[in-house]
């Protein structure tokens, strides 16, 4: 008695689309893959080339400089713990992935965010796409990443960029739109061109908001980079993953605590950068 409604083959369509993209644009994906992998290797090697205490000193000095001595001491203790737990190398791998993913995400997000702030039509097109990107369960991005870029860190970067980009775009748009109209009017009244308005008024005034967006992006990138261990990304995530597979909660928590320390350090440093700019 039930009426048979054929189910829509949505999944098949998406798969067909992805397959088509993979085969048609393999040249592009391979090029991206090569460039990204090189970037990861160079940065990772550079960070690993430094002795542990050297990098630790640099990070602590950075914390002290952008924020205060307290953050410097806290950072030193946290990093020393990671070193002591023998998680230094995975931590560096995770940091590398976060830095590169954030860099790519911000490089894409800033112009898109600016354009969306200046064009109402683009704004209306982009906002639902951002909603989609942010609410889609993060794991799902991992699946198409593999046929595009294969198993490994490049796929992790791809999924991370998509997942972590929306806040940077949103905050950039918001920041520019929040610039008081009377300041825009003042710039117009003195005959500023669109680009003069953007670079002399809108961008400088939206900088604190943009920085808040970048901070969000870094946090999301870190969480995604850890999850991306499932598709073979190196780093703290793969330590956690291994602990799950071997049912060793102790190892899992050790790696988890290292992630928390890294997250807090990244967060505090970028927050301080934002506030520092303001005053």
């Amino acid at each position: 008695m039930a009426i048979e409604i054929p189910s829509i083959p949505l999944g098949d369509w998406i798969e067909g689309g992805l397959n088509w993209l993979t085969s048609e644009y393999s040249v592009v994906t391979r090029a991206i893959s090569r460039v990204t992998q090189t970037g990861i290797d160079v940065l990772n090697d550079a960070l690993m080339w430094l002795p542990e205490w050297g990098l630790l000193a640099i990070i602590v000095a950075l914390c002290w400089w952008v924020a205060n001595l307290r953050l410097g001491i806290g950072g030193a203790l946290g990093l020393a713990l990671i070193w002591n737990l023998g998680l230094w190398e995975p931590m560096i791998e995770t940091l590398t992935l976060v830095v590169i993913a954030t860099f790519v995400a911000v490089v894409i997000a800033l112009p898109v965010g600016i354009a969306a702030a200046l064009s109402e039509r683009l704004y209306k097109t982009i906002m639902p796409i951002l909603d989609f990107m942010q609410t889609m369960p993060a794991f799902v991005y991992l699946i198409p990443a593999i046929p595009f870029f294969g198993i490994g860190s490049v796929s992790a970067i791809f999924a991370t960029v998509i997942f972590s980009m929306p806040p940077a775009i949103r905050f950039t748009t918001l920041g520019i739109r929040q610039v008081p109209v009377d300041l825009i009017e003042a710039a117009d009244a003195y005959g500023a061109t669109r680009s003069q308005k953007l670079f002399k008024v809108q961008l400088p005034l939206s900088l604190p908001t943009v920085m808040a967006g970048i901070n969000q992006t870094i946090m999301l990138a870190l969480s995604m980079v850890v999850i991306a261990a499932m598709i073979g990304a190196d780093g703290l995530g793969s330590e956690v993953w291994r602990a799950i597979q071997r049912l060793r909660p102790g190892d899992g928590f050790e790696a988890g605590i290292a992630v928390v320390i890294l997250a807090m350090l990244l967060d505090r440093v970028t927050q301080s950068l934002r506030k520092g700019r303001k005053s």
Partner: protein
Amino acid sequence: MNENRNVKIRVRNLSKVFGNQPKKALELRNQGLKRPDIFDKTGLTLGLSNIDFDVYEGELLVIMGLSGSGKSTLIRCLNRLIEPTEGEIVIDGENIPELSDKALLECRRRHFSMVFQNFALFPHRTVQQNAEFGLEIRGVEKEERTKVARHALHQVGLDGWEDAYPNQLSGGMQQRVGLARALANDSTVLLMDEAFSALDPLIRGDMQQELLELQHRMQKTTVFITHDLDEAINIADRIILLKDGEIVQIGTPEEILTKPADDYVKRFIEGVDMSRILTAEHAMRPVRATAREEDGPRTTLRKMHENGIDSIYVTSRDRKLQGLVEVDTLERAAKEGKDDIREIMTQDFRSVTPEEPLHNLFAMFSEKSFPIAVIDDQRRLLGVVVKGAVLDQLAQAAEPPALDEAGKDHESMAATGDA
């Protein structure tokens, strides 16, 4: 007098409709409908309707009206921060509504500097960098613009504040920065949009005075928007009164006050403190008799007797004021046989210039009952003001009985002033 001056901006037939399909609103307007009816019928707001006026080179023109009268729209149409719907705005031969985007930028840079009600300073720039803004936009060299901006800041009395940020300054100082930003730009026209309205009354008065001085010194063509009639009267060369997007009256402050065009203007000016607007010249009477300094006491006494006065001003041959003698001292001198009134005349009287506001004269009367002498800059006696005349004048001004009568009165005042 105005006919001889150069027109800097000519505004003709300027209208602005807010909303889509503005033509519909203009058609209804042409059928004689007013703003509220047009809004009821179409949902469109007739912001400005058929505005005609000239701005003369070097004058300070005040556009005044209550909120919603269209004054902010009008000033923004001049530099096209708001696009006019129809009409022409010609500045130095260029019709602004017809300019291309690029030409418009150029026109704004060359001709217009604007000062805003809420200052609109850039919070991320120092005072100096704010003052430099217009020059920076125009691509002026760093060295040159630093120099010019510094000079502008000096003119508004902000030496030493160059490196402060706007949020470190008081409201009055912030608006000085706004003014410096406009002055540094050295545009041909200064647009001031309720520039002093956000300031507290004392600072506001100071700023008005300073603007007047600057304007006087630089002869900068200025269009000043305000909702405050006292402010308008205080600073304007001419006033344009707007109501519901239309011009109700254009005239000098005195014309607006003494010959209000209609009931709306009359109601508008009721709140004005007339004693600040009317001057000694308005209450001045011709001198009935003066003594000459060569006159003897007896001649002088006789003059006074004939005119029924008990004190008399003494002038030299070229009508310069020398002093005052009273009837008692004269009589005493006559008895004692003195024959030079210069010896017995007193300097214990008050003299003012014709421009002295009436409200300053009240205090002078409370001391002595002598008429106040009105003198010109060479101390020539122009006339006298007696206490009753001041009160008369204020009473008349407070409730102008009828238009034509007020007009007549104004002419007679002018005649007295010339004498």
